[in-house]
């Protein structure tokens, strides 16, 4: 039982805000609870993921009177509500994401939590928690509403803060008495935040410098992240890369912002990225980072990172610039806007050939492609991802959980479009997958939405199967079942002398029966020859389908840059008859 029964509010994926109905004469006072819901409609947010409870009851009472105007999705756990809002937002481009998770991965959501009445705050009242204090480090901003007269302004500001600048989660803690107090509702037309002025346009001189470097430097690479997705800058990125004939490598969060099959695409970079992508960073003379933040999973050992390269860094968050690496050309601005500015000042000359650089890159691609070996009679996890690509034609909205399956999906499932890849990158939150996929399925009833999860992650939030079935969602859940916490096992194998510690779960539920118990369809594949037919059947069946795919347990994710190692220390899959690489100390 938690104290903050939190409906999570996400913006509706419509271009035009839903006009507010006017059932009440403008001058009539309204309860705070009603004002809150009217504000949401003004912001175009007509879908709510939530869970009722004592302190938020006035809001739920008003909700009952507004049937047909606001869709409420009753989750089975509040955590599910927040992740669902995240999936809803990420797949649509409007406000949404989970609190802590949302902050790291810059996803815009607004969270409303019910608080005890103001006269009880500080008295250790029943279900009282200092929600504003607890969430301060993991929200972009948060509010405790003390007066119903402030409520409309706060909601207006919350939506503005969530979606502007570097997007993020905003929480509004609403005491029960405030939601009962009345005042005349009037929605402010503009926000007044004197200290908050995020920059969107890059400095023109720096933009020119960056373009000059890109045109003149032979060994250049574009390193692109979630900021491009968040700003809807995919088309601009494609145009710039093609005009400059520049190789592109997306981060985990950036997948989908550049077409994965394009000839300029080197594949994902980072700890489990492709050899070519990582080596291109190690050997480049110019790295142009757009909407990415030089995360440690991407840079590896900072002392050896891109020693000889000039660095251009475009980011909407000034605190991300010069944080991990020293930048030669810092540009603070929105990714899409800056990409446009760059295109506008491109010199009117043919694209640089970069013959030598492309030859090097092509040699790497040829000699060190993503690869795996078929082992004995087992379904290889990589083969599962390839089969999913075949069955969905790469057109699905793909959510993942966290672990080995996430990395194999990132490597082998080619994300074709922006906003079609939902994953927990910054925090690696296990249990994100099912509720996020649920949010995406609510938002995209006409698209195939699939979740690729693992047997560990799935068990963290599987209660949301009930919500998915109750809401008649069309959602395909694929469990890559290797019978252990595979990524942790991989680290224990490689770095802890195979001292396996608590990575086997000893008991697993029968996921097929479990799906059936929830009213979903359950299917299982255990042998390679069954794989494709099971997936085809599952994806052809409407509604919620859980596919339990038993895969090879011992498989490791390669390539791998060990934590704290440099890009050029990338480890490829060892030969069949060779021992795995020597265990090394963790940095």
């Amino acid at each position, binding site marked *: 039982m938690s104290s903050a029964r939190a409906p999570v509010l996400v913006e509706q994926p419509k271009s035009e805000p839903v006009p507010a109905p006017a059932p009440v004469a403008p001058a009539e006072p309204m309860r705070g609870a009603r004002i809150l819901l009217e504000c949401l409609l003004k912001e175009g947010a007509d879908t709510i993921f939530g869970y009722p409870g004592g302190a938020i009851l006035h809001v739920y009472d008003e909700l009952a009177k507004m049937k047909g105007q606001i869709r409420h999705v009753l989750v089975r756990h509040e955590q599910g509500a927040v992740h669902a809002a995240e999936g809803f937002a990420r797949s649509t481009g409007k406000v949404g994401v989970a609190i802590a998770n949302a902050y790291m991965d810059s996803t815009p959501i607004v969270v409303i939590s019910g608080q005890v009445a103001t006269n009880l705050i500080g008295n250790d009242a029943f279900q009282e928690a200092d929600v504003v204090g607890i969430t*301060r*480090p993991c929200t972009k901003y948060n509010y405790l509403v003390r007066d119903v007269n402030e409520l409309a302004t706060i909601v207006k500001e919350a939506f503005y*803060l969530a979606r502007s600048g570097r997007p993020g989660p905003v929480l509004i803690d609403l005491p029960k008495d405030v939601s009962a107090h009345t005042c005349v509702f009037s929605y402010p037309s503009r926000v007044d935040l004197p*200290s908050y002025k995020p920059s969107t346009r890059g400095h023109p001189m720096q933009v020119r410098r960056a373009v000059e470097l890109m045109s003149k430097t032979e060994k250049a690479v574009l390193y692109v992240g979630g900021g491009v997705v968040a700003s809807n800058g995919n088309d601009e990125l494609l145009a710039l890369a093609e005009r400059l004939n520049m190789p592109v490598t997306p981060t985990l969060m950036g997948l989908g912002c550049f077409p994965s099959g394009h000839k300029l695409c080197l594949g994902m970079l980072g700890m489990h990225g492709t050899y070519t992508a990582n080596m291109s960073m190690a050997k480049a003379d110019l790295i142009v980072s757009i909407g990415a933040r030089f995360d440690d999973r991407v840079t590896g050992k900072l002392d050896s990172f891109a020693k000889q390269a000039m660095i251009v860094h475009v980011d909407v968050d000034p605190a991300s610039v010069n944080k991990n690496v020293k930048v030669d050309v810092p540009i603070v601005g929105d990714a899409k806007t800056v990409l446009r500015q760059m295109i506008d000042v491109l010199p009117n000359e043919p694209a640089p050939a970069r013959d030598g650089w492309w030859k090097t890159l092509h040699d790497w691609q040829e000699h060190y492609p993503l690869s795996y070996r078929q082992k004995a009679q087992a379904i290889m996890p990589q083969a599962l991802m390839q089969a999913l690509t075949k069955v969905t034609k790469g057109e699905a909205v793909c959510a993942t959980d966290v672990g080995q399956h996430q990395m194999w999906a990132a490597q082998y499932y080619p994300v074709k479009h922006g906003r079609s890849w939902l994953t927990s990158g910054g925090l690696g939150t296990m249990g994100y997958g099912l509720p996020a996929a649920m949010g995406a399925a609510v938002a995209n009833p006409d698209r195939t939405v699939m979740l690729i999860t693992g047997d560990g992650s799935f068990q963290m939030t599987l209660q949301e199967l009930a919500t998915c079935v109750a809401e008649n969602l069309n959602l395909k859940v694929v469990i890559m079942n290797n019978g252990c916490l595979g990524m942790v096992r991989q680290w224990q194998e490689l770095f802890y002398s195979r001292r396996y510690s608590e990575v086997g779960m000893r008991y697993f539920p029968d996921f097929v029966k479990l799906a059936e118990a929830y009213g979903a369809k359950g299917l299982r594949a255990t042998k390679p020859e069954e794989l494709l037919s099971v997936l085809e059947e599952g994806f052809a069946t409407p509604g919620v389908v859980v596919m339990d795919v038993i895969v090879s347990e011992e498989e490791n994710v390669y390539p791998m840059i060990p934590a704290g190692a440099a890009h050029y220390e990338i480890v490829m899959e060892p030969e069949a008859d060779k021992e795995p690489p020597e265990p090394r100390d963790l940095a």
Partner: protein
Amino acid sequence: MKGRHVLSVLVENRFGELARVVGLFAGRGFNIDALAVNVTTDPAYSKIVLTTRGSDAIVEQIVKQLRKLVRVKKVVEMTDDRYIERELCVVTVQAGGPNARQELERVVSLTGSRVIAYSQTAFTVEATATSQEIDQFLELLRPLGIRDMVRSAPIAIARPSTDSAAESAPPLGGVA
């Protein structure tokens, strides 16, 4: 390299904002050595002056994170000699006998401090100076016997500029 840094943070005068500012330090395992907060000439804003220790790179990152806070309007590092620092110290010393009183009188007149309360055996003295000068002042008093002592956090302000435009600009105590 763990240098001393004095940061001046102009923030909207609202509940919870001080907690956001100090939380950025606590979350990084940084101690705030001293902290002073009060409203500015515009009561909608408060100025926080805080002193911390850390490498330049980490403090630079904290400054960026502070600037990112929604209600923080301006952050200035006030460590170098373009800024004037002042700290208040109030100290009660023993001065029972005539020799001790004579010594106290000498220290007070030499340092420009002043006696603000006294009894037959003890005197309470107030001094306003830089942190370093306060340290030295306390050293002078130590032989007399310090009964009690309290120091405020240092506050800091930019030295007045000869550039008249710059001087007339700031409506909020140094804020453009």
